[in-house]
C-alpha cells in the first residue's frame, strides 16, 4: 500500500519543489496542505504518516502543528523543512518531537539521505 505523505507549506512553489525532491519510484500518496490547520486536519485523517513540514506559515505555523501532533498523539513522523535554520529553531522543533530538520531549499539528494537515515526509505 502506498505510504501517505503530507507536504505542508504555505508556498505553492515550495510544495512543488518538495514533491519533486521525493525519490523516484517511491510508492507514496502525496497530500498538500497550505497551512498548519489544514496540515493537522490531514494528519488526523491519516494522510500524513510522513510529514514534510514548513515552520513559517499563516493560520498555524510549524511549531503549532508539532504541538498538536503531540497533544493528540497523532501517528506522524515529521521532517521539518525550513528556511529558518537558526540554532534555536532547530532545537525548538527537536524538543517538540520532530524527527529531523532539513535546510531549505530541499533537493533529491538531501531528501533521499534523510529518508534513508531514518529507515523510511529502504530499497527503491
Amino acid at each position: 500500500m502506498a505510504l501517505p505523505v503530507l507536504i505542508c507549506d504555505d508556498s505553492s512553489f515550495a510544495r512543488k519543489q518538495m514533491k519533486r525532491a521525493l525519490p523516484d519510484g517511491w510508492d507514496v500518496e502525496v497530500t498538500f496542505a497550505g497551512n498548519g490547520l489544514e496540515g493537522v486536519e490531514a494528519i488526523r485523517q491519516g494522510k500524513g504518516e510522513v510529514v514534510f513540514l514548513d515552520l513559517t506559515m499563516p493560520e498555524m505555523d510549524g511549531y503549532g502543528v508539532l504541538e498538536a501532533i503531540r497533544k493528540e498523539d497523532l501517528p506522524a513522523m515529521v521532517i521539518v523543512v525550513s528556511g529558518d535554520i537558526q540554532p534555536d529553531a532547530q532545537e525548538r522543533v527537536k524538543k517538540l518531537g520532530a524527527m529531523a530538520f532539513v535546510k531549505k531549499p530541499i533537493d533529491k539528494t538531501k531528501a533521499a539521505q534523510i529518508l534513508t537515515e531514518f529507515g523510511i526509505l529502504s530499497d527503491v
Partner: protein
Amino acid sequence: MLVDLTEDQRDCYQEITNVAMGQAADRLARLLNVYVILPIPKVNMISASELHMALAGANTSDDVSAVCQGFIGSGIAGEALLVFNDASFADLAQLMKYKGPLDRHGELELLMDVSSVLIGACLHGIGEQLELHFNQGHPVVLGQHCHVDDLVKSGNHQWSQTLAIEIHYEIENLNINCDLLLLFTEDSVAKINQQVDYLLD
C-alpha cells in the same frame, strides 16, 4: 505601462527570499547568540512614489539610520537598503560587546557590521537559488538620526517602477529591529523574472 507579477512569481520570490533571509538570520543569530524573528517577506512591483510608502510602512516615525549598497551581476542590478531604528543601537552595542562610546561613530561602526552580514548573506542566498552571482559595491551611509522622509527625498529616482523585496528583522526579547529593502532596477526585472520562471517550470 505597469506590469505586475503573477501569483506564482510572487510566491516564488517570497519563498526564495524566505530561504535567503533565513540564512542571513542564522549568521546574525550565531554571531550574537540570539533568536531572530522572521516574518513573511513582502514582494511587490512598486512605483517611485510608492517607495516612500514601502519605507514608511516598514518603519515608524522614529529616527532611523540607513545604509545602502549597490549590487550587480548576470545582467541584474539593484540596491540594498538597510534602515535601522535608532532605538536599536543601545541593545545592539551590548550584544556586540561594543566597548567604545556610543556616539555617531560608534553607531556607524555597528550599523556597518550588521549591514554587511545581513545584506551580504541575503544577496548571496537569493543569487544562489536563482543561479546568479552578484558583486556588491561599497556600502554608503544614507543618513544617521534622520526621518524616513529625508531618506527618500535624498534619492534621485530615474525609474518609474521596480521590483521591491521588503524584509523585516526583529530580535527576540530585545529592542532591535531593522528593515532590509532590495530594489532591482527597472531594466533588471525582465531578466530576474526569467530566472524565476525557469524555477517555476
